[in-house]
C-alpha cells in the first residue's frame, strides 16, 4: 500500500472548510489557554483571592472605607462581594483580560506558529473569530469565578445579612443577592471591550508585553481622565465609567441612563477594537523572521503615540458637556440618605421611630473645596438639623458637616466628625457592636 493510501483515512471525508471552522479554532485556543501555567494560576487567584480578602478582614477590625460599601464588609457578605467588584472594575478585570486576551495573537508571533495554523483547513477569518471567542469566554469565565468566589466568601465568612441601599434604606437579603449578581453582570460589556482592546494592541504591536499590560495601563489612564474636567460627555465615553455604573441599581430609585450609556459605549469600544484588529490581520503579510525583526519596537512606538494622542484628546475634552456633579444633585441625594440612615441608627439603638418619620432639616448647603461648585472632587456639605429639646424654645438647628468625596459617576463617600453622629461602631439595643450607619455615608446620584 502506498504512503498516501496508508495515511489516508478512507472512512473520514474532509469536511467543507468553512463549516465549524470557528468552533474548531475555538476548541484549539481553549486547549492552548488551559495548558498555560499563567492562566491556571490566574484562575486559582480568581477563586482564592476573595476568600483571602474576606479572611484578612475577618481577623482585623479595619475596613476599606474609601471603597463603596467598604464600611459594611463586616456587616454583610454582599458588601464584601461589592468591594471585590469595585477593585475588580479598577484593576482586576484589566489584568485578567490582559493576561488572557493580550497574548492570544502575539504568542503566535513569539512562537513563530502563525505559519503553522494559517496553513491548516481554516481561513484567517475563522482563526480570528475563534481566537476572539476564546479571549472573550475565558475572560468572562475568570470574572464569573471571581464573582462566585466573592459571594461565597462573603456569605460563608460574614453572612447573608441584608444590605443598606445607597439611599440609606434597608434591602432584603434576596434583593441584595439579586442586585449583586446584576452588578457583576454589568461588568461584562466593559470587560469584553477591554479584551478587544487587548486583542488590537496585541495584533498591532505583535508584542505580548504591550497586549498584556496595555489594558491595565488603559484602565489607569481612564481612571485619571475621569478626574479631569466637570463635563459629562467625555467621561461617558470612557470604559472606566462603564465599570462604575452598577451603583445606580443600589439606590432607592434606580436610574438606568448611565447603565445604558455604559453598555453602549462598551459595545462601541469593542466593535472599533475588533474591526481594527481584523483589518490588521486580514491585510498582514506573514513574511517570516527577518522582516519581522526589522519591525522591532516601531509598531509598539506607533501604538503608544496613537494612545497618547487619544488620552490628550480626552483630557482636553474633560469639560465637554453639562456638569454631571452639581451641588443640587449632591444635596438631593445626601439629605434623603442622611434622613434614612438616621432612622436606621435610631432603630438599631432601640429607639421608637414612627413610620415615615423624617428629620427636620433646614438650609442644607454643599460647596466644592477650592474651585468651581461643580465636578467630581472634594466637597463640603452642611446639614442643619432641628432637634426639639426640652427647655429650648424655639428649637435651634444643629449643624452636621460632612466631608464628601464625589466621583465622576455621581457616587460619593461622606464622613463627619463623631461629635454629632458618633463613632464608626456603636452598641445596638442588644448590646452588640454594630456599624454606625451615619459614620460613613455612601450614596449615588444620576449625573445625566
Amino acid at each position, binding site marked *: 500500500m*502506498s*504512503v*498516501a*493510501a*496508508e*495515511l*489516508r*483515512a478512507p472512512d*473520514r*471525508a*474532509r*469536511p*467543507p*472548510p*468553512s463549516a*465549524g*471552522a470557528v468552533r*474548531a*479554532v475555538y*476548541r*484549539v485556543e481553549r*486547549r*492552548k489557554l488551559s*495548558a*498555560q*501555567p499563567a492562566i491556571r494560576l490566574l484562575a486559582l487567584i480568581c477563586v482564592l483571592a476573595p476568600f483571602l480578602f474576606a479572611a484578612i478582614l475577618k481577623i482585623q477590625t479595619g475596613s476599606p472605607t474609601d471603597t463603596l460599601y467598604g464600611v459594611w464588609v463586616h456587616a454583610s457578605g454582599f458588601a464584601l462581594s461589592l468591594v471585590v467588584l469595585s477593585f475588580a472594575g479598577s484593576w482586576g478585570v484589566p489584568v485578567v483580560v490582559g493576561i488572557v486576551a493580550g497574548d492570544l495573537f502575539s504568542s503566535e508571533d513569539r*512562537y*513563530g*506558529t*502563525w*505559519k*503553522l*495554523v*494559517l*496553513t*491548516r*483547513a*481554516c*481561513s*484567517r477569518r*475563522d482563526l480570528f473569530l475563534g481566537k476572539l471567542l476564546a479571549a472573550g469566554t475565558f475572560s468572562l469565565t475568570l470574572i464569573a469565578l471571581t464573582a462566585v468566589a466573592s459571594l461565597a466568601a462573603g456569605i460563608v465568612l460574614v453572612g447573608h445579612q441584608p444590605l443598606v441601599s445607597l439611599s440609606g434604606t434597608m434591602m432584603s437579603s434576596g434583593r441584595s443577592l439579586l442586585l449583586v449578581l446584576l452588578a457583576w453582570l454589568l461588568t461584562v460589556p466593559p470587560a469584553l471591550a477591554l479584551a478587544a482592546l487587548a486583542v488590537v494592541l496585541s495584533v498591532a504591536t505583535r508584542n505580548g508585553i504591550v497586549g498584556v499590560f496595555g489594558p491595565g495601563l488603559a484602565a489607569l489612564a481612564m481612571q485619571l481622565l475621569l478626574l479631569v474636567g466637570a463635563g459629562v460627555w467625555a467621561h461617558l465615553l470612557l470604559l472606566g465609567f462603564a465599570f462604575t455604573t452598577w451603583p445606580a441599581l443600589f439606590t432607592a430609585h434606580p436610574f438606568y441612563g448611565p447603565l445604558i450609556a455604559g453598555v453602549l459605549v462598551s459595545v462601541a469600544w469593542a466593535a472599533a477594537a475588533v474591526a481594527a484588529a481584523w483589518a490588521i490581520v486580514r491585510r498582514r*503579510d*506573514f*513574511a*517570516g*523572521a527577518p*522582516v519581522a525583526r*526589522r519591525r522591532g519596537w516601531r509598531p509598539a512606538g506607533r501604538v503608544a503615540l496613537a494612545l497618547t494622542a487619544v488620552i490628550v484628546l480626552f483630557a482636553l475634552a474633560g469639560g465637554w458637556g453639562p456638569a454631571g456633579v452639581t451641588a443640587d444633585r449632591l444635596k438631593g441625594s445626601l439629605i434623603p440618605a442622611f434622613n434614612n440612615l438616621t432612622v436606621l441608627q435610631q432603630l438599631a439603638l432601640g429607639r421608637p421611630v414612627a413610620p415615615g418619620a423624617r428629620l427636620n432639616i433646614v438650609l442644607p448647603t454643599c460647596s466644592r473645596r477650592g474651585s468651581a461648585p461643580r465636578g467630581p472632587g472634594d466637597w463640603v456639605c452642611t446639614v442643619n438639623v432641628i432637634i426639639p429639646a426640652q427647655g429650648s424654645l424655639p428649637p435651634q438647628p444643629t449643624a452636621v458637616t460632612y466631608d464628601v468625596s464625589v466621583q465622576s459617576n455621581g457616587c460619593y463617600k461622606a464622613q463627619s466628625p463623631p461629635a454629632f453622629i458618633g463613632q464608626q461602631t456603636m452598641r445596638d439595643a442588644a448590646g452588640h457592636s454594630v456599624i454606625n450607619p451615619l459614620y460613613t455615608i455612601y450614596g449615588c446620584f444620576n449625573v445625566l
Partner: protein
Amino acid sequence: MAAVRASGVVKRFESTCALDRVDLVVAPGEVRGLLGPNGAGKTTLLRILLGLVRPDAGSVELFDRPPAQAPALARVAGFVEEPSFYPYLSGRANLELLAELDRGAGAPIERVLERVGLASRAVDRLAGYSSGMRQRLAIAAALLGDPRLLLLDEPTAGLDPAGVREVGGLIRELAADGVAVVLSSHQISEVQDVCDTFTIVRRGRAVWDGTVAALRAQAPASAFALETSDDAHALALAARTPGVRGDASGRGLTLTAERGRLDAYRSRSDTPAWRSAGSSCWPARSSRCSSR
C-alpha cells in the same frame, strides 16, 4: 487542473524585490525542486503559495483557487523556514491541535508519527526536541492533513543522512500516489534524486526551468583553481584523467570537471604533492582549492 499555477508573481519588501515576475506550474504527482542560494526568493514563493504572503502583482492558483482561500488550503500542506510549534505542548498534542483545526479529517496521528519515526518521543514536550526531530514533526504535520499538494521549505535541513534518505523516499511515494510536491533547497545534491523538475531561482527571478536530465546536460562543470608543487606534472595527469580538463595559461592551474571526476583525479597515486595547506574540499594537508 494544475496543482500550482503561478504567473508573473512579484513581491517587494520595502526596497527589496524578493520575487520578480516568477512563473511556476506544477502538475499533480510532480516533484518540483526550487533551487537557489539563500535569499534568492524560494521561501517567499512558498509563503505566497501557502497564502501567508500576498503577491504585489501576478496571480497564484492552487487547484484553480486562490491560496488564501480555505478551500484551496484544505488540500495543501507544508511549512516554511524552520518548523515552529507550541513549546509548552508535546509533539503529539501539537499534532492533535492541528488535527482539530483540520476538524479531524486526514491521517490518524499515530500512523503519521510512526511514519516519521517520532512515535516513541510523541509525549515529550517540544522544548526537548532536536532540530531534526522538529523537522520530522513538521513533515508529520504536513502529512496529517491528507494533502494533495505539499509545499516544503528545505525539508531535509537538520536531518541526518538516513533521515534525508527516508524523507526523499517518502516524497517519492507520495508523488507516486498523485501528490504534487514543491520543495526548496540550496543544495542540488540533496534533492536531485527526489525531484522530477527544477526551477532555479536567483535574485528573485526564475532563471531556469526544466527536468533533472536537462539540468545535468546544461550545467557547466565546476572549475577549481589549484596550487601545486609541479603544475606541468599535474596538467599531464589531468590530460590522462577522463572528464578533467586542465589549463595552466592563466595564473596557476585550473581544473574543470564534475566533482566526482575531480575526486578520481585526486585519488590517483601519482598526483603531485600539493604545496599549500588549508583546503576545505581537498586533503587539508596538501592542497588549496577554491570554487569559481
